[in-house]
């Protein structure tokens, strides 16, 4: 006996019957098969599960899938368009903003929302903005550099800003 929900994820409407207790992150990973969104803790701390829900960056491990009924979700799989990497993805690659890559999808989704709100962020604003996303590898230096670089790329080519949906 489930609840029928419709979630528009990366631009596509997806329908499913779910238990109310199904977490959004599990819905994304296991029902929809999109495993780019990661689970890094069990305590709402690490932010590896960050997705955009109606344009807001949230920890999808702490939201129920039923809460996303009728709403839009953007995950890391929705960043690239037509086979071309999003400027944020390019920047993370070029600036070596990742090592193991586990925190990276969450970092990039947070960056996506951050840069929408602050197109020309200072270093302090970036550091403050990603303070909900933990990285155990990089020491954050190159992550900050990547986001700064992404900001520059987006200001230069605003048409590349959107993801899928």
């Amino acid at each position: 006996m489930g609840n029928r929900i419709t979630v528009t994820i990366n631009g596509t409407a997806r329908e499913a019957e779910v238990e109310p207790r199904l977490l959004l992150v599990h819905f994304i990973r296991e029902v929809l098969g999109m495993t780019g969104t990661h689970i890094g803790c069990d305590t709402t701390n690490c932010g590896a599960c960050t997705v955009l829900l109606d344009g807001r960056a949230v920890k999808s491990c702490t939201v129920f899938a039923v809460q996303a009924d009728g709403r839009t979700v953007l995950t890391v799989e929705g960043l690239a368009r037509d086979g071309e990497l999003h400027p944020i993805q390019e920047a993370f690659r070029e600036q070596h903003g990742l090592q193991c890559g586990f925190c990276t999808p969450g970092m990039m989704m947070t960056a996506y929302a951050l840069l929408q709100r602050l197109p020309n962020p200072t270093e302090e604003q970036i550091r403050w903005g990603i303070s909900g996303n933990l990285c155990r590898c990089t020491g954050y230096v190159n992550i900050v550099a990547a986001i700064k670089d992404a900001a520059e790329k987006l200001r230069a080519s605003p048409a590349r800003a959107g993801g899928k949906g």
Partner: protein
Amino acid sequence: MIPASFEYFSPRTVPDAVNLLVRYGQEAKLLAGGHSLVPLMKLRLAAPRYVVDLNRIAGLSYIREGDGALCIGALTRHGEIETSDLIRARYPLLADAARVISDPLVRNMGTIGGSLAHADPAGDWGAAMLAGGAEVVATGPGGPRTISIDRFFEGTFVTALRPDEILTEVRLPQAVKGQGGAYLKLERKVGDFAIAAVGVGLVLDGGTCARVGIGLCNVGPTSLRAEKAARSLIGRKPDDAAVARAAETAAAECDPADDLRGPADYKRDVVRVLTARALRLAVQRARGGA
């Protein structure tokens, strides 16, 4: 990791939500931002049989000033308060508090109403509202009633809300000339609960303190008011001596526990230092600076 099963409701109006509480009583929990409830449910420390999601109710998220009051809808997210131009310009106590609650992702979901109703002694809004002299509006089957924040926190996780009531609004006195406020938090790392935090709200009139509120976070079984410390400043000039005395008094008024965030006497001293700093900052802002 996986919450226990529950039945989920998503009412569209406050009366519908209240009726669900009336029907299911203590077996139901309200879901606002969910960032206190869902972590507890994932650990199965909380396992309500019914969850009533408030997020589809329109008209519970707003920041309005007028008629002598600042009114904030209970479903307003911490992040919305943090970035509100009105709050930043005129209510520094709230602006300061909003930005140190957990982390930016949590602030996108967590709500001021949920935070107050959850009544975690480590919740920043509790101490800030005590400092600001707030009142909350609780809506039950009989309609709304107002509860002074001074009478709101009854115990750890226990408030004056009845089981069939929903906190729908938070109100503060409208900012007046000579008003200042500040909220300072010491935390081990960004996103953590406070080792201790202090909120101050005051109004200066002709150089002396006409109104003072001091709220303390995570140094007692509930959010605390440093009543004696606040009273010691009424009618006085907030000079160094008066501020130091109030800070010492506030430290004596709190009741911290030894835990992983530090021993009790350390936390007491953090309260003393933060109270002094918050008072000085609030006074500076009241005089038109900072």
